[in-house]
């Protein structure tokens, strides 16, 4: 009989210990600990959810964000306002123009200047196009999370046209870096409005296709109806915003109720969509309707575009006067706000970024108790967060 080496003995001991650990886990009340993430196809990025499972049911869950923390608020302390505008594009990288808007509006509030009406209109158009780019991808990704691979490709195919339009104006598909204190960097190129209207028709066609392919599907309805119900009071107390809040029946939209003078939503005719159920289906449905509504807003804004200058009179090197300002806007992911503290310098003294996804994700521990593992994915998909937005 050959002698057993010490290494073999250690290996054997470790293997049995690992098995014993799993057995202990399985047999205690707490259940098997499962780490969903940080590397996982379902969490839109590096989000870690620690779940204790009893079979396929979640007994306890917690969210551990921070794997993508890039130190934005610290970075802004040593950057000038144009540089911060560039960086801030990358917080919610899908609806990128929408990140710049509240920051620029806060700086404009401190400087007490107003962008000219044409700039205000185009700013709103690009804001809504950012919403389209973001939510169209959500609709495609929704299919993937639930197992239907085809809607994702339709989403990317039709989203390309929106990105092409953003590129034609700003030069960048994903990171426009176009908003400036006092207006916008440049004006629209010739033929842009006609092209944009054609793209809006296409996006509406995409919404109809997704409705037929995904939302009308009985399997989709069975997977999402009644799953992850968030009552309105819970939604409000956890600070949910955006479509998550409206899907629980709360009629609150910062575009209409926020009193933001810097955006032109008050000049057009549109409606806020709510749904009384508060389940995953409601959240997805509200976002689908919001996409359609965004196309209508863009159409009306394109029709009623005023002429005029694109930039107010601002000095070459901008020094924002001392003060504090907080502006919150209805970004694609929810309510995003920037609290800008200025000491009269070329760059901000401190910027606090209130990101929508951070608050949206805070409801996950409450929501995941008692759900099945496949429903975790449905719920995360319907809550819709971007990691850059959670972690900044």
């Amino acid at each position, binding site marked *: 009989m050959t002698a057993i080496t010490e290494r073999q003995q250690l290996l054997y001991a470790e293997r049995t210990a690992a098995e014993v650990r799993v057995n202990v886990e399985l047999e205690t009340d707490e259940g098997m600990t499962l780490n969903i993430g940080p590397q996982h196809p379902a969490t839109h990025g590096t989000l870690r959810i620690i779940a204790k499972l009893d079979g396929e049911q979640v007994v306890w869950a917690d969210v551990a964000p921070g794997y993508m923390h890039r130190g934005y608020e610290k970075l802004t302390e040593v950057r000038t306002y144009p540089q911060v505008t560039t960086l801030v594009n990358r917080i919610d990288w899908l609806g990128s123009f929408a990140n710049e808007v509240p920051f620029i509006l806060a700086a404009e509030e401190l400087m007490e200047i107003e962008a000219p009406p044409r700039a205000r209109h185009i700013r709103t158009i690009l804001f809504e196009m950012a919403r389209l780019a973001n939510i169209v991808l959500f609709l495609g990704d929704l299919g993937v999370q639930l197992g239907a691979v085809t809607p994702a490709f339709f989403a990317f195919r039709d989203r390309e046209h929106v990105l092409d339009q953003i590129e034609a104006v700003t030069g960048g598909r994903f990171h426009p870096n176009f908003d400036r204190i006092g207006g916008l960097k*440049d004006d629209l190129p010739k033929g842009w*409005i006609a092209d944009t209207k054609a793209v809006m028709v296409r996006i509406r066609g995409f919404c109809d296709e997704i409705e037929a392919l995904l939302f009308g599907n*009985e399997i989709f309805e069975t997977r999402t109806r009644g799953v992850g119900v968030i009552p309105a009071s819970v939604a409000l107390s956890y600070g949910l915003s955006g479509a998550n809040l409206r899907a629980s029946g709360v009629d609150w939209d910062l575009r209409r109720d926020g009193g933001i003078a810097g955006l032109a939503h008050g000049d057009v005719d549109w409606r806020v969509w709510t749904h009384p159920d508060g389940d995953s289906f409601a959240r997805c449905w509200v976002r689908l309707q919001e996409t359609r509504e965004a196309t209508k807003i863009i159409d009306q804004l394109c029709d009623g*575009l005023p002429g*005029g200058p694109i930039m107010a009179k601002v000095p070459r090197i901008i020094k924002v006067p001392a003060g504090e300002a907080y502006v919150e806007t209805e970004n694609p992911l929810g309510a995003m706000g920037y609290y800008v503290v200025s000491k009269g310098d070329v760059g901000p003294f401190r910027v606090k970024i209130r990101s929508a996804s951070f608050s949206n994700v805070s409801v996950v521990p409450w929501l995941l108790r008692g759900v099945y593992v496949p429903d975790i994915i449905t719920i995360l998909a319907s809550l819709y967060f971007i990691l850059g937005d959670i972690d900044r």
Partner: protein
Amino acid sequence: MAKLSGPKTPGLIKGLGVTFKTMTRTMFPARGIKTLIPAPSVGAATVQYPHEKETPAPRARGVIALKEDNCTVCMLCARSCPDWCIYIEGHKDTAPPRRPGGKPRSVNRLDRFDIDYALCMYCGICVEVCPFDALFWSPEYEYSELKLADLLHDKERLGEWMQAVPDFEAYEAGSEQKVRKVPR
């Protein structure tokens, strides 16, 4: 479980219809007499790079070109870059006076102007901030290298990119912006 609501087509069948329709549209994109000739390369949304290439918009931020004659080594671009990826060195020189009998002028001459595209964020602050129209955007994007160090474009290479800079486009109706000219 799966309920068929009256005479309406169940969603399951409609979904199958959508995918089937997309498949036929991709395979047979032609209209008219040529309807049944398969041509998926035309019908699909794919652009088969590198055999076919898409032309980006004229304003697309592909690469930055330098017009050396306009540069006065004011260092504004290097200072405003968020990544500090522009490296500028210059020296003061004397130029002949403008009028005979006048003082010789001191001018800045550019020795080194490098942009490190490995660091560049393509934000465009340098192009925007330049007061002398020395930097321009070009939609050219095919300049990837095998070595990271080769992504540092020097003065000559940046000057060559000027050929790829398109003219500025006209603006939409109602705009008060004037179309600038690219110095060639």
